[in-house]
């Protein structure tokens, strides 16, 4: 038999998918990947997934960006090229705060998007599930659950039977 990546089950509704993911997760499956056309409430919780990295990275990037540009302004106008303009102090902090604020916001934007892409391991143009023609529906109206064969609980016949019990509308094997 050819090597396979795992099983792909399609569910008719988002609720059925959430229920199935909950049941499978409780049964000990960990290599589960539900895929949906829009963010379905309750799915990350059903997987036991919590991640605070995106906002944390955004905040860290914002602070670094703001401090960095403030330091640059201070360095350039106090150390590198001190030059009095209009009798203003070399270290004109009220003026320096403005670029610092703006660049801080920009860094938060970049930080959150980079953290999102990196956490999701994107770009990743290839995924075994793309071999299955039906998987195209994941970007329209299909609710899918990928169970990878690498899962210790995975067993060819039993996993498929369990998915069928959990109201999967269709189960296909995903080639590796």
């Amino acid at each position, binding site marked *: 038999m050819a090597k396979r990546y795992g099983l792909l089950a399609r569910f008719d509704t988002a609720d059925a998918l959430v229920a199935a993911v909950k049941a499978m997760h409780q049964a000990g499956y960990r290599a589960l990947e539900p895929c949906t056309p829009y963010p379905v409430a309750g799915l990350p919780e059903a997987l036991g997934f919590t991640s605070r990295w995106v906002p944390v990275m955004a905040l860290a990037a914002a602070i670094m960006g703001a401090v960095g540009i403030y330091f640059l302004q201070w360095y350039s106008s106090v150390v590198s090229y001190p030059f009095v303009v209009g009798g203003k102090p070399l270290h004109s902090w009220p003026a320096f705060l403005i670029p610092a604020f703006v660049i801080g916001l920009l860094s938060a934007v*970049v930080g959150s998007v980079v953290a999102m892409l990196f956490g*999701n391991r994107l770009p990743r143009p290839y995924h075994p599930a793309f071999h299955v023609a039906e998987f195209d529906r994941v970007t329209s*109206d299909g609710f899918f659950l990928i169970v990878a064969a690498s899962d210790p609980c995975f067993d060819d016949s039993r996993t498929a039977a369990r998915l069928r019990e959990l109201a999967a509308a269709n189960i296909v094997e995903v080639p590796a």
Partner: protein
Amino acid sequence: MSRHDESPLLPPDLTHDQLTTRICDLVLHRSSPRAWWGGLLVCGLLATLFVYAVAYLFALGVGVFGINIPVAWGFPITNTIWWIGIAHAGTLISAVLLITRQPWRASINRFAEAMAMFAVVLAGVYPLLHLGRPWLFYYLLPYPNTMELWPQWRSPLVWDFFAIFTYLSFTATFLYVSLLPDLATLRDRAATRLGQVFYGTLAIGWRGSAVHWARYERANRVLSAVAAPIVVTVTGIISLDLAVSIVPGYHFTIFPPYFVAGALFSGFSTVALLAVILRRMFRLQDLVTRTHLDYLGRMMLLFALVVDYAYTQEIFTAWYSGEDYYRYVYIDRWTGPYAPAWWGMIFCNVVLVQLLWFRRVRRSPLAMLCLAITSNIGMWLERFQIVFTSTHADYMPSAWGEAWPTMWDWAVFIGSLGVFGVLLLLFVRLMPLISLHDMRAFIAMRDRRSDDG
């Protein structure tokens, strides 16, 4: 019981599959409507005019514009402020309405974001055109150089550069993040090899994994939370270009909020304008409904009233300051050479917008189209009169003077409208005009609600 419950924001029997097919077909299968080709032709000609005028400007220098001391800023800065204001509503619709969970944003946020993107690009172009030696624009960047020069950090013009740069980067990021899941939809439905490769590359392998969605939503929420301060800061900083100076007519503390409100007013007007045109062009009247126009009309009215309040406060401050120069600015605005601009602004932004109090006007596409155009004209006149009247007669009568736009000022301005149109028309043919994943979530929410009831 609110009245809008009578007319839903969605067709009652729309399913996920129908939505996908309809919106994807607009991009992938259906040929462009005749109105689209007509629009592209007109805008393309204007865009050519823009390219020609800019080439002429680069060849001969800023002398071809009507800018002249004492009105050194003239048209280019007027247009920058105007364009960046238009951009703001796109950002605000996507961001603030997302955070406040307003479902009516779902069908209009996509083209509002695209509008923001192209408007910021044009806003960024004008200061470069105005530089005189545009090839030295990188002097604004703080970079190590053999001249040992640094930007003057205390100058609002440097803040301006950072503000516009930030806004450009933010808008592009926000637009792409919002497009990402929809690009995957197009990838999966593209029939041609070229389409598959094009959308497949842009979709970077998005597969809608629940964990991906969780991070995606978090990132989107961060972007939206950052959007409001960015909008306020960007226009606030641009207004500081004027307000930090001691020129009468510029030096008002009300400028930052006043500019932000004006920006949102013109921005919502432009969203309404595009909504009326695009829903007609692509027959989306059931997705972008009259209720949407109604809400946009309310937003226009709200920000118009804030702008009107700012007008009164500006006049009050000029009088209350007791300074002859400040008072004279107003007498000059009312009776001087640029008086028609001031009165035109009042007519558009104070008088005509009052029609938006009427529900029938807000729900009529034709009336909204007309009011959107007059509001944009009004806001442009406002920017014009601020930039021109404040500087043309400030302190010393011996330094007074007038500046009038030349043919090339107009060519660049009208041409830039064409560039905007071309970019937007191409965008709606290449990208989904309506945010599919937002609409899917909205449909799911509606189905859930009807299950409960």
